[in-house]
């Protein structure tokens, strides 16, 4: 079992494996996302209160989910890299960050777009949007710290510490922001929540999440391959062709 794990962590092996895996993520991802889009826009009925605007949920909620999921993946990869000194894990964390930041941006943008017809303004200090905003700051800080080092090893390890410190803070941030908004929220404002809706209306949501997860699998496989090539500049296995 350890042998397999060690083999996996070796760059040339990982590079080839990721290359083979990528299309197995990519095509199903596309299929799932298209299915979810059709289901969410066409098949699912409009919401009683929010009408067709409610369909934005099917891109907003999965984006928010992915933004948090990827942050945890990033932090776990960083921890593995730091504790067991596996360079590939650091590379995975580096590869994941821009994808996670993109989903965070999407969650914020679609949340804001959804908020306009619902609340009348482009931005509301709602618990979830505010937490997402802070999450975006955490991603940006991570990427900024990485790019501020010339030494790649130092960049890997310093940003790993930051990612771990950040992930411990995420539940604290969530809780404090939620508590803060429940204190200030006037009773008349409708929360940007998943309304209590029928199961049939949730199917496109789940399918979209699956689609996004597969997309993440594809994207990180490709980015990680690029990272491996960049880090293994002078390695001999490159010369043998792969």
């Amino acid at each position, binding site marked *: 079992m350890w042998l397999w794990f060690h083999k996996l962590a070796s760059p040339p092996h990982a590079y080839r494996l990721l290359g083979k895996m990528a299309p197995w993520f990519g095509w199903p991802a596309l299929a799932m996302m298209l299915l979810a889009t059709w289901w969410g826009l066409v098949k699912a009925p409009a919401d009683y209160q929010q009408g067709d605007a409610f369909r934005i949920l099917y891109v907003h909620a999965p984006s928010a989910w992915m933004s948090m999921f990827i942050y945890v993946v990033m932090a776990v990869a960083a921890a593995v890299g730091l504790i067991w000194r596996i360079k590939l894990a650091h590379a995975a964390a580096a590869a994941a960050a821009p994808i996670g930041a993109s989903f965070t941006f999407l969650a914020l943008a679609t949340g804001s777009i959804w908020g306009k017809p619902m609340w009348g303004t482009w931005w509301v200090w709602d618990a979830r949007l505010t937490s997402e905003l802070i999450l975006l700051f955490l991603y*940006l800080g991570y990427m900024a710290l990485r790019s501020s080092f010339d030494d790649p090893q130092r960049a890997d390890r310093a940003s790993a*510490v930051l990612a771990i410190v950040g992930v411990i*803070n995420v539940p604290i941030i969530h809780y*404090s922001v939620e508590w803060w908004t429940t204190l200030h929220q006037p009773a008349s404002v409708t929360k940007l929540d998943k309304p209590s809706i029928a199961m049939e209306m949730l199917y496109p949501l789940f399918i979209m999440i699956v689609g996004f997860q597969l997309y993440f699998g594809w994207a990180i496989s490709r980015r990680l391959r690029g990272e491996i090539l960049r880090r293994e500049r002078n390695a001999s296995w490159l010369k043998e062709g792969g």
Partner: protein
Amino acid sequence: MSRAATTAAARLVFRRDLTLAWRRWDEVAQPLIFYVVVTTLFPLATTPDLSQLRVISGGVVWVAALLASLLALESLFRSDVEDGTMEQWVLSGQPLGWLLLAKVASHWVLTGLPLVIMAPVVGTALGLPFDAWGALIASLLLGTATLSILGGIGAALTVGVRRGSVLLSLLVLPLAMPLLIFGSRAVGMAMDGDSPVGPLQLLAAIFFLTLSLGPLAMSAAIRISVEN
């Protein structure tokens, strides 16, 4: 290394830093002056009406304390890293976390504590009522202490980076937002006549969590910054 030796070393670090700072007290005074100046900006930018300022007074004092603390944190480890002292500590075999914590503690006494002491004064200038002083001082004591440790982690990570102070703020501010929320909420509740115990307890919980895990992160970060 024995427990007694570690405590002695930590105490030595603590006293050394205080003595050094005493000779350069203008460096200590600058964050404090910045603090007062920033709080002055708010009535100038909004309104001189105390009854209106009172509403945001707790928040403004807190934000100013946050920014002033961040200003002071950038130089926390720099001189020791530059002159090689930090490398000695890493190699010394003493538990690095304790030494760093001693450094953070002395830094807090020099920068955080004065902010807390000045807080009722600047708060009153913004219309903060006397009833809220207790909540203000308690929340800032916990908050600035937590922030010193969080800032210590950030400073340890960015110690070799050029223009590290902006990066430091970018890294530490999101982590400090819960402190800000609970701290200013405690003051707000005290002003409304409610008990501020809830948010204060949360601040205390965050402080103890940071106190137990912070030194670990700091020593990991310092080792990364110092090793070649």
